[in-house]
């Protein structure tokens, strides 16, 4: 179920061989390439625009290639504005949420997959229920709670509710449970006969076998936390605690609304790390989707 993707691609080849030639012909290829251009063009235009001056971006008709390429927008972002700080905040929060999720979700997944205890079914249902709770429902009371705990505008205030949200431990626990359930029970039984405790089994036997699932979970969690918007917008009240998406959105509707060059450079700064992660680790995404059983 989890690693069948490569084998599943075979039918296409078989069908192609049976038919003697690829199906669809040139028109289908043209349509698919055209669609891909529609998807990619805004990204290309964003990158090109980020090295244009705002004057050039406000010209009609718009230009494709920058007439006078400049890195001025990026210099502005990092020297006049505090984008280095926003970058640091976003990285810190995303890494903390990811590490927390890897540990807590695999613990939860292991308990749900391989241990037997009263209340397990209830816990499983609560975990699935959490996946359905949208952030828009909980953010207001969460804000009241967090302000009473004195955590508004702090890193724990940014991190903990994200970890508890729908794309946090609940999602991770579900993914890890699916994966750990498929590991053979004999491994655990053998270790238990040897007198190993549950924690030793978990850390020394289970975790080392969970590589692919942990990789998929790490990427999905990191991206969700990096791009997260509503909660950081609510909880970060001063500029020094902004994350990148919050800073970009507030600048775009506020003081830098018409500074197009700056906004596009900001968009590149938000998107680029994610695109790099995506390109390098592309196959784990599909794996992650397959692991949650959505297909």
């Amino acid at each position, binding site marked *: 179920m989890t690693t069948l993707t490569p084998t599943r691609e075979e039918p296409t080849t078989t069908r192609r061989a049976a038919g003697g030639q690829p199906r669809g012909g040139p028109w*289908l290829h043209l349509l698919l390439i055209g669609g891909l251009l529609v998807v990619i063009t805004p990204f290309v235009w964003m990158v090109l625009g980020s090295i244009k001056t705002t004057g050039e971006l406000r010209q009609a008709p718009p230009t494709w290639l920058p007439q006078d390429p400049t890195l001025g927008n990026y210099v502005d972002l990092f020297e006049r504005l505090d984008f280095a700080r926003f970058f640091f905040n976003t990285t810190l929060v995303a890494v903390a949420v990811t590490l*927390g999720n890897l540990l807590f979700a695999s613990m939860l997944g292991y308990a749900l997959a391989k241990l037997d205890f009263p209340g397990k079914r209830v816990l499983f249902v609560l975990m699935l229920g959490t996946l359905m709770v*949208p952030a828009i429902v909980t953010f*207001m009371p969460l804000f009241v709670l967090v302000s*009473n705990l004195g955590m508004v505008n702090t890193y724990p205030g940014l991190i903990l509710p994200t970890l508890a949200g729908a794309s946090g431990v609940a999602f991770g626990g579900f993914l890890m449970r699916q994966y750990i359930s498929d590991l053979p029970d004999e491994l655990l039984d053998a270790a238990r006969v040897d*007198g190993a405790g549950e924690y030793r089994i978990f850390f020394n036997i289970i975790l080392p076998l969970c590589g692919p699932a942990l990789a998929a979970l790490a990427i999905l969690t990191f991206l969700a936390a990096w791009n997260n918007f509503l909660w950081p917008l609510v909880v970060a009240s001063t500029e020094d605690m902004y994350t990148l998406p919050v800073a970009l959105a507030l600048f775009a509707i506020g003081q830098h609304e018409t500074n197009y060059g700056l906004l596009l450079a*900001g968009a590149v700064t938000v998107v680029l790390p994610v695109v790099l992660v995506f390109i390098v680790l592309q196959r784990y995404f599909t794996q992650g989707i397959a692991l949650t059983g959505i297909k």
Partner: protein
Amino acid sequence: MTGPTTAIREPVVAGSRVGRPRWRSILVSWSFTLPFVILFVVFMAGPIVVSLVTSFTDLRVTDIRNPFAVDFVGLDNYVNVLGDDVFRRAAFNTAIYVVVGVTLTMGFGLLIAIGLNQAVVKFKTLFRAGYYLPYVTSIVAIAVVWRLLLSEETGLVNALLSLIGIDGPGWLTDTRFALGSMVVMAAWRGTGFLMVIFLAGLQSIPSELYEAAEVDGAGPWQRFRSITLPLLRPTLLLTAVIASIGWLQFFEEPFVMTQGGPLNSTLSVAYHTYNQFSFGNYGPTSAISYLLFLAIALLAFGQFRLFRSKT
């Protein structure tokens, strides 16, 4: 009790090893779930319950340090919200976002998935990654880019339209076009996600079925209707649930691109909720978010019923 047979058979039930009482193994088991349980109780279950209670009170931002001093106002918040023209407009817009958005993303997602599954053999991974790319990038960044692309005078979209002699409107500033532009833009982003799911579903359909149908003289449309659609049904219904839940929470795009305007024509329920929160009206905020929650729960429940009864 200490015989080797028992020692081998027993461990299947976790931790209930020889000499260790059952309660201990239960404690150990629960300790694995403790981080989730704490996070869930404090940051999920707590707020959900508080939100429900708050929706029946007149809590305002000024009461935040003393939440127990507020008064209960019964169903007033719900009555006021449902009678409010701005909320009604937001609810209407959100209904359009969900219906049009889900239809567009599922339609295009399925088309592209079928296309990729049939035609491109060599560069499938590249195509798949390309189409998926917008989905992994920040909505805020994409909304900033599209706001410029859709601008009336200096935007790329109108520049391309003028090449074929069309004088494009202010896509985001004209009340007739703003909502539509927003849906299409967000569908542009969401399609790749559904495409990847559909592609996995398509690849699990045995090719023999298509070959047999072809031998029997079935055309492409017939093969699609009698093989692809029925076998893809569970996938389609599940993605419909996921996509609907996503579109019901539509927020970042109008926030960055139009601030809900012009004249509330792009305001969504989620955005309206956020606005009420920033005005400090916590009672109505809770009431609206609960109405949204209810819509999501009903939708998910309904679609899952459908999903179960047909498979």
